C-alpha cells in the first residue's frame, strides 16, 4: 500500500481511479455509439448488437462507479509518464510495421533495434549498432531460413 504522502488530496481523492474511470467510460460511450446501427433483439433471438451493447452498458456502469469512487476513496497519485521510453519503443514498432514490406528484414531490423535501444538514457550508439546488426543477422537466419517464415529479407528495390 502506498503511504499517505503519495495519495491524492483535494476534490479528487484517487487520481488514478479518476483517470482510469474516465477513460473507460469514454470507451464505453464511444463503443455504444458505434454499435447504434446494429440489430437488437428479435423475439427471443439476439441481434448482432445485443451482447456488445450489454457489455458496453456494464462497462459504462462500472467505470462510472470507479469515477465516482475516486471522489470519496483515497488512492495513489498519478504516476509520471516518461516520454522517452514509450516514444522510442512505439516509433520502432511503427517503423517496423510500415517498412518491413519495402525495406526487408535486413534494413528494417537494424533500424528497429537501434530505435528501440535509444529508449533508454545511456544509449551507446557504437555498441548499439554492432548489437543491432548481430541480432538482425541472427533473426534473418532464424525466421526466413530455419523456420521458413515468408518474411522479406532484402529491400524491394534491390531485387
Amino acid at each position: 500500500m502506498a503511504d499517505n504522502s503519495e495519495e491524492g488530496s483535494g476534490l479528487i481523492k484517487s487520481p488514478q481511479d479518476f483517470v482510469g474511470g474516465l477513460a473507460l467510460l469514454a470507451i464505453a460511450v464511444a463503443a455504444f455509439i458505434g454499435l447504434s446501427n446494429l440489430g437488437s433483439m428479435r423475439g427471443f433471438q439476439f441481434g448482432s448488437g445485443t451482447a456488445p451493447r450489454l457489455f458496453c452498458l456494464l462497462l459504462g456502469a462500472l467505470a462510472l462507479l470507479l469515477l465516482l469512487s475516486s471522489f470519496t476513496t483515497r488512492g495513489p497519485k498519478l504516476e509520471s509518464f516518461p516520454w522517452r521510453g514509450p516514444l522510442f519503443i512505439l516509433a520502432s514498432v511503427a517503423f517496423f510495421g510500415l517498412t518491413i514490406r519495402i525495406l526487408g528484414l535486413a534494413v528494417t531490423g537494424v533500424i528497429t533495434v537501434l530505435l528501440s535501444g535509444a529508449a533508454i538514457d545511456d544509449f551507446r550508439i557504437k555498441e548499439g549498432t554492432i548489437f543491432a546488426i548481430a541480432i538482425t543477422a541472427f533473426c534473418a537466419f532464424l525466421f526466413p531460413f530455419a523456420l521458413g517464415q515468408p518474411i522479406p529479407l532484402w529491400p524491394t528495390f534491390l531485387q
Partner: protein
Amino acid sequence: MEVFANLIGGLWVVFKIVPVDIMPGAGSFIVPLPVNVLLCLVGAMIGTLIGVLPGVGPIATIAMLLPITYKLDPTGALIMLAGIYYGAQYGGSTTAILVNIPGEATSVVTTLDGFQMAKQGRAGAALAIAAIGSFFAGTVATLVIAVLGVPLTALALKFGPADYFSLMIMGLIFAVALARGSVLKALIMVTLGLLASTIGSDLESGEQRLTLGLLELSDGIEFAVLAMGIIGFAEILRNLENPETRDLVQAKVTGLMPTKQDFKDSAMPIVRGTIIGSILGILPGNGAVLGPFASYTVEKKLAKDPSRFGRGAIEGVAGPESANNAGAQTAFIPMLTLGIPPNAVMAIMIGAMTIHGIVPGPQIMQKQPELFWGMIASMWVGNLMLLIINLPMVGIWVKLLQVPYRMLFPAILLFCCIGIYSVNNQPFDVLMTGACGLFGYFLVKNGFEAAPLLIAFVLGKLMEEKLRQAVLISRGSMAVFIERPLSATFLVVAVVMLVFALLPSIRKKRDEVFTE
C-alpha cells in the same frame, strides 16, 4: 488402470518420431526426429531462461512465442508452450535462491529462506531440494490431472448452454477475486475484455461490429496481437522506467547434494506443499500464486521452532517450491477439461488452441486424445528433464543474469515484431500491437491488471454464443440461469466469491497476502 493406459498413450505421443523438414527455407532436408520431446526440451529451457531473467515473465514470453508456434502442429505447439510455463517456475526459484530476486511471482516466498541458505553456503542444498520438491510435485500433479480429467470432462459434456454460461461467469469472478488490487478495477477489465471480444463479424448475421470500417478487424482482434501488446510490450515499457538495480552476487554453488537430515526435514513439507498447491491450482482465478504463500504459512505453523524460518529453514524452501510447481500444473485442469482459463498463461494456451482450429473445452479429450494425453505426459517428461539438466546448468543461468536489460529489450522487441508480422504477413498487426502496448501501459500506470481482460477476451465469443443459445432455448426467459441446478450452483458460488472479495476484512487479508 485406465489412467495409466492413457498416460502411456501420452508418453508414446511425446516420444513419437516424425519425419521433419529441418530447413524449410533452404530446400528440403528431411530427418526423422522425436519432435515433441525436443519441443518439450526447448520449451522447458526457454522457460528456465526467462524464469532466470528478471523483467521477462512467462506470460509475455509465451505471448511472444505464440506466432512461432503457428507453423507447428498443435500438439507440439502446446507441449512447448506448457514447457515454457513450468520451466519458468524452476528458473524463478533458481534466482530467488541465488541472488534474492524472485524471477517469477510464485517464487517470492522462496527468497525468504532460500537466499538465507545460500548466504550460509547451502545454496546447493536449497537448489537441489527445490528441484526435487518441484519434480515430486510435478509428478503428483500430472497424476491428478490424469485422474480428474476423465470425470470432469464427462461432467462438462452434460452442460447445457445456460450451465456453460454460468460456469464461465464463475470462472471470471474467480479471476477477479484473486486478482491483485481493486476488485472493481478487475471487474472493469473483465467487461472490457468481453466487449473487445465482440469486435469483428457477428457469428450469425455476419454484420461488422465495432471494426471502425477496417477490413483488418473483420475477423476480430488477433489474440496474439492483443496478448503481446497489452502484456508483452506494456511490460517492456514498464521495465524501462525502473533503472537496473540488480546486484550481481556471484554465489559459489558447492555441494549440490543435500544431507540426510535435509531430506528428512523436507520430505513432509514437500508432500504438504504438493497437496496445497494442487488444490489451489485447480481453482479458477490465479490460485497457483497463492500456493507458495499458503504452504509457507502452514510449514511455519507446524514447525517446532518457527523462529528458524527466515533464517534458512529448508522446510521454507521445500514446501513453497513444491506448492508452486504443483499449482502451476493443476491449473491446466480447468483449462483442458472445461475450457476455462484460470490465469493469463492458460488464456494464451486457449488462444493457441483456437488458432490451430481446436475448440477448447470438454470435447478436446474425445476429439484430440493425442493432444490431451500427449500434453499431460509431456509435463512429466519435461519435469524430469528439468531435474536432470537444470542443476548442472546453474552456473550458466547465473551468468545469464549479467545480460543487461538494455541489450535484452531491443532483441525482444524485434522478435515480437517479426513474430507478429508472420502471423498473417500483415504490417497492420504490428501497428495494432504497438497501439495495444500503449493502452496496456496506460492500464498498468493506473492500477489496472491486464490478466482478467485477457481471460475475458478468450472466453467472450463462447460466452456470447452460449448466452444466445440459452435465451433462445428458454424462449426469452432469463430465469433459466437460476432454474437449472448446475447453472444456479455456479452463479451462487460466483456471487459468494464476489461478496467475499468485496468484504473489507477479507480484502485487507488478501492485500496482506499479496504484499507480504
